[in-house]
């Protein structure tokens, strides 16, 4: 019975996922390796040989590579602030959590309104007399500004997810360990790196995995700000599935997204492994 218990606990979730994820997933995965009913790698070849694929692939990694570390740092900062605060913490937490409630579509909209040629940023600069005429930020010629805008929007939108997980995790770290570190000469920063971070590993793991995975699926914000000029894997998937109506290639894209997500998850799990003995 006790040996069966973990399985019993996992059973409902597993069944659920098998029905609502695994079944359709196998369908789609099957699509990716078949074409006209025959097993083939043609879809993958087609995907890989499409001229946008490398760009989309590297853009996706680049974006995740920039956004996730920034978000991690910001989420940790915000979580530390919120945890440290005595007064007004729930208000602050609420404010920090606000972007959580905003869909990526709406977030794209907001940031587009900022970066557009006649947007708020230009209005402000113009109002301050810094510029005489609006600057075109999101032009296909300066991809890096587009990248910057996307990074800002993504950081703004999706940091809260990590932050909330980390806040919850930090709340569970017994205060006494921080105090012990303090007494033993750890500066604020050392306390953070030597005590808080290691003890936060499980939450960090979760936050990072979820965030990285979502970063690989980034889509709406990129499309809103980058238009066609910043292809990412997910937008290509969309394109193939719906515009070009080629489900096989779209499925191949999806498998690539899945592949890199799993690869990165493995890395994160390895990096943030907590030995069994060292758990609380």
């Amino acid at each position, binding site marked *: 019975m006790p040996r069966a218990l973990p399985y019993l606990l996992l059973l409902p979730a597993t069944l659920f996922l098998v029905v609502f994820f695994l079944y359709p997933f196998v369908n789609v995965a099957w699509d990716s390796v078949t074409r006209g009913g025959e097993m083939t790698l043609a879809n993958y070849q087609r995907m890989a040989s499409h001229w946008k694929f490398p760009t989309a692939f590297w853009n996706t990694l680049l974006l995740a590579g920039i956004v996730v570390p920034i978000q991690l740092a910001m989420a940790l900062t915000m979580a530390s602030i919120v945890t440290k605060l005595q007064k007004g913490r729930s208000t602050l937490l609420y404010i920090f959590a606000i972007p959580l409630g905003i869909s990526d579509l709406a977030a794209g909209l907001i940031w587009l309104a900022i970066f557009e040629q006649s947007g708020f940023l230009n209005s402000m600069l113009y109002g301050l007399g810094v510029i005489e*005429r609006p600057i075109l930020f999101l032009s296909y010629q300066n991809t890096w500004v587009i990248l910057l805008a996307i990074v800002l929007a993504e950081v703004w939108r999706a940091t809260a997810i990590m932050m909330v997980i980390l806040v919850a995790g930090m709340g569970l770290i017994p205060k006494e360990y921080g105090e012990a570190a303090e007494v033993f000469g750890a500066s604020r920063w050392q306390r953070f790196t030597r005590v808080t971070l290691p003890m936060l590993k499980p939450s960090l793991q979760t936050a990072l995995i979820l965030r990285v995975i979502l970063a690989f699926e980034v889509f709406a914000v990129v499309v809103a700000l980058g238009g066609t*000029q910043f292809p990412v894997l997910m*937008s290509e998937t969309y394109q193939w599935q719906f515009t070009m109506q080629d489900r096989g290639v779209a499925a191949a894209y999806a498998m690539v997204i899945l592949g890199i997500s799993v690869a990165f998850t493995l890395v994160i799990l390895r990096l943030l492994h907590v030995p069994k003995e060292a758990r609380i």
Partner: protein
Amino acid sequence: EALFWSTQAKPVEETQAMREQVLAGFEGGVDYQGMDEGPWLTRIQAEMQAGSGTIAVLGGLHGDLSGLGEGLMDLSAIDTSVIGDAMLELGRLGTDQQLYVPWMQATYLMAANREALQYLPEGADLNALTYDQLIAWAAAVHEATGERRFGFPAGPQGLRHRFFQGFLLPAYTGSTVTEFRSEAAVEAWGVFAELWSHTTPASTNYSFMQEPLLTGDVWIAFDHVARLADAFNQRPDDFVAFPAPAGPEGRAYMPVLAGLAVMNTAPDAEQSMALVNYMLQPETQIATLRATNFFPVMPVDMPDDMPASVQAFAPAIATMTGASDALPALLPMGLGELGGQFSQIYTDTFEQIILAGRPVEATLDAQAEVLRALMVQANAPCWAPDEPSDGPCPVN
């Protein structure tokens, strides 16, 4: 309620107007749903695969519907006598069944801010512009204001491919497919590259030109009429609409055709037919025009109180289609679900040549091969303005 599953009139205001002004009169009520292509298509495919469904009537552009061939019901029973043959032919999707019936039509137009008119090159007639004049004009605006103010919907939702398929290439090559990599095509792309140098780089973010027109970021624009309408309706006095420019082969333009179809899985075929019929009534067609800026597919008498956009567009369209050098380019036919990939070829060509700056000839050669393979795969004969062909439309 009958479910009307459509890719058209999705902007909320249009949806609202469809429901309240167009469809309210249908007995039994209609649930009008304007969808993005993604969910629209997914739902349809799901119903087809499942073999049962809830959708009564499909509404979509020719391109949307052309991939659905086998799942659609033959609508020959519907009285389509007032509709032009060319349009009906498109609706057969290369079969001998009426798989969709034309619903409404539109085209693409040019629009300009009145401020821009002062920079119109001398001797140029707004109603009979050539591409060269357009470029000169855009250049003049660019020079005068220091800004690139020609606008072009090259964003993800933009209809840029139609511009190449139906306007630019036919105007220079007299063809959409066959002459894809001809010298004339190279010239056309050269012309476009020049125009692009006066086109606002933000164009790659534009799906609809009405907004940049309204904000003033763009002074001269090309887009689908429905996607220009808001600018004219909001500030009727600030903008003018005029025909697409002409090239050496003529003033090429492409109509836009939306159709109505019924799936084999429709829950109540009779009701669906009734709804299709209802949509083809002249009053409904006029109401649809008001709601969506799509024009009727049959001759109707227009009332005087049409919205500003319609009042501005109707004469421009008439001028364009009635021009002596008018060169209609039809929507792709017989491509079925490969329509998306067909369009993608034009988009890719644009992105590679113009945005990525790759060599024109090489790109055209490469894309031509893709195009040829596609035509073979689809086994689609040529359509206007290309010469009719036996077998798949050739790419020279």
